[in-house]
């Protein structure tokens, strides 16, 4: 094992922060002799660069939550990593957090890698004051005297416009927006190199959502962290991410700079996602897609989008399209765009 922990601010700046290669994560159950598998993530590759907000969009059964769990190393049966690797800049040689040694993980977690969770309204321990969450999560990584630590926390809370008094409050005494900002401060206090944000603003009202997004952006710029930002909301992606990947039925179908995706979507699924978004001031009719997302226990052959695709041809039913660069930095997995032969 040549595992080593590298400093996020080392001299290997050009090295990407996370490289995911051909990841396959399945839910496998076996009872009464019947083995079943749900291929939630099936051959996903992408790279998160240093200092960028990388967006991941997908609907409820796209496998994006499973992808996040895999990257975070939160693998519990029946979820299994079946193939592929995830290499972090700060943890190389293991092929993923789920294989890292315990001591290594304890060093990395929160120092180099933190999370803003889906439903992060409920991430603070309800029976303890907010201060103790900061102490539990961050103090072991920051050290020094508790007094210094608290000063640091107070200064950091100011970045998310929270008063120091929230530290002595219990979570239920804070409003939803305040809790969300406290969670944001908690996730960024150690200035980690990498933050995974899973639907961090979905439960918020629009006005608060915009404010919190601005704060995430602000802190990210200041600390130079990379963020993997997952949400189904294309408006949020447009607002905050630098690059964007679209996931459908366990696979990536398109990836490009966010602006490029919105300006020039290539994959028919992406095209529909963007063209169907209603906009205030535009009265043209929008059309949804026919059909329903596939069941991942029994996905369609070939391209998983072909049963709903207006451009589907015979090859789409047979072969799996791979992600190919259509123009610089713009990858797409579609025979209609890339041309016939697939590979």
């Amino acid at each position, binding site marked *: 094992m040549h595992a080593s922990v590298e400093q996020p601010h080392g001299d290997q700046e050009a090295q990407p922060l996370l490289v995911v290669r051909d990841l396959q994560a399945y839910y496998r159950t076996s009872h009464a002799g019947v083995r079943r598998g749900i291929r939630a993530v099936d051959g996903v590759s992408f790279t998160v660069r240093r200092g960028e907000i990388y967006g991941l969009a997908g609907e409820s059964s796209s496998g994006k939550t499973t992808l996040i769990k895999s990257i975070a190393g*939160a693998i519990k049966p029946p979820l299994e990593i079946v193939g592929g690797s995830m290499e972090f800049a700060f943890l190389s040689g293991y092929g993923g957090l789920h294989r890292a040694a315990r001591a290594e993980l304890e060093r*990395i*977690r929160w120092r180099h890698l933190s*999370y803003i969770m889906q439903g992060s309204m409920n991430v*603070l321990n309800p*029976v303890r004051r907010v201060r103790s969450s900061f102490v*539990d*999560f961050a103090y072991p990584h920051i050290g020094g005297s508790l007094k210094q630590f608290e000063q640091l926390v107070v200064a950091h809370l100011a970045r998310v416009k929270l008063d120091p008094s929230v530290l002595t409050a219990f979570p239920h005494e804070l409003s939803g927006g305040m809790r969300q900002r406290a969670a944001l401060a908690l996730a960024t206090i150690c200035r980690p190199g990498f933050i995974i944000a899973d639907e961090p603003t979905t439960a918020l009202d629009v006005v608060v959502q915009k404010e919190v997004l601005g704060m995430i952006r602000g802190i990210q710029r200041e600390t130079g962290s990379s963020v993997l930002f997952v949400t189904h909301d294309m408006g949020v992606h447009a607002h905050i991410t630098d690059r964007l990947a679209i996931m459908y039925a366990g696979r990536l179908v398109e990836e490009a700079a966010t602006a490029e995706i919105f300006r020039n979507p290539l994959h028919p699924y992406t095209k529909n996602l963007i063209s169907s978004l209603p906009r205030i001031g535009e009265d043209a009719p929008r059309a949804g897609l026919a059909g329903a997302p596939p069941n991942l226990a029994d996905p369609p052959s070939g391209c998983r989008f072909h049963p709903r695709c207006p451009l589907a041809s015979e090859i789409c039913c047979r072969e799996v399209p791979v992600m190919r660069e259509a123009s610089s930095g713009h990858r797409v997995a579609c025979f209609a765009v890339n041309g016939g032969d697939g590979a």
Partner: protein
Amino acid sequence: MSGYAGYVGRRLAQFLLVVFIGINIAYVVTHASPIDPVEQSISAVTSFGNTAPDAIEQMRKSLRELYGLGGTPVQQYLTFWKRILSADFGPSLSAFPTPVGTLIGRALPWTAGLLTVSTLIAWVLGNLLGGLAGYYRQSRGLKLMGVIAMGLHPIPYYILAMLLLILFGFIWPVLPISGGATMNLPQTLTPEFVFSVLQHAVLPALSLILIGVGSWFLGMRSLVSNVLAEDYVVYAELAGVNSWRILTSYVMRNALVPQVTGLAMSLGGIFNGAVITEKVFGYPGLGSLLVDAVYAGDYGLVLGVTTISILSVSVGVLAIDLLYPLLDPRVKVS
């Protein structure tokens, strides 16, 4: 803080309601009898030996008043309450003329001590082990403990107490099986007396603890497996928070909250158990007093012990309720 005041107000109101309904049940039960309880009691007492006729008359008068047999139903009811509120249950018939209050006062500390200590031990131990068993699901030892708890929990107090009695009284006689302390020791705080009290408390306490532990263990284990799925626990795990810290401050701390409510709710049942245990081990508490009073036909004493039981259990519940906000800060806003 007004939230806390509101909470305390609600708990006090509930406390008064429990006492009110409890005493009323006692009233209805005593007045439901188709036979004249006074004559029955007197015949039960007098059959033991020669009692002076004027003493019998005094008893009859006191009993009739206690039963509230004179006057209109409303007057009967009010008299009943008056005697209970003034804690005046008259003289005991079986230990005439010692007042019932004195007998109860003597017995109460034994029960309170035994019950408090054994309940606390059972609660703490059961929750601790149950918490560990819920957290470390794979541990064989804890799994085995779960099986034992499942077997122990449904066994009634009497049967378990009897089994212990057989085990330590006949098969392996190492512990005293009867009484609260060695008979002839003076009841002062000498080391011998304290040791003797502790020694005598082992078996009754053990039977209470064995049954209690099982139920707290099972409850805590299932609570913990629910808490484990909560966002704040998952998040702390992802954050690499020390696992002992997660177990104590996150998992157990939150799972304990309903267990405190559970303790308050089951206090009545635990008291029932203590009554039996005391009888089996001849422990000089309220339970033995109650059972012996029934055998002796001592009405005042039975009624006195019953009302005091209702009252002391309610006080216990109130005490737990008032401590509850310390554990769960959320009650203040409820």
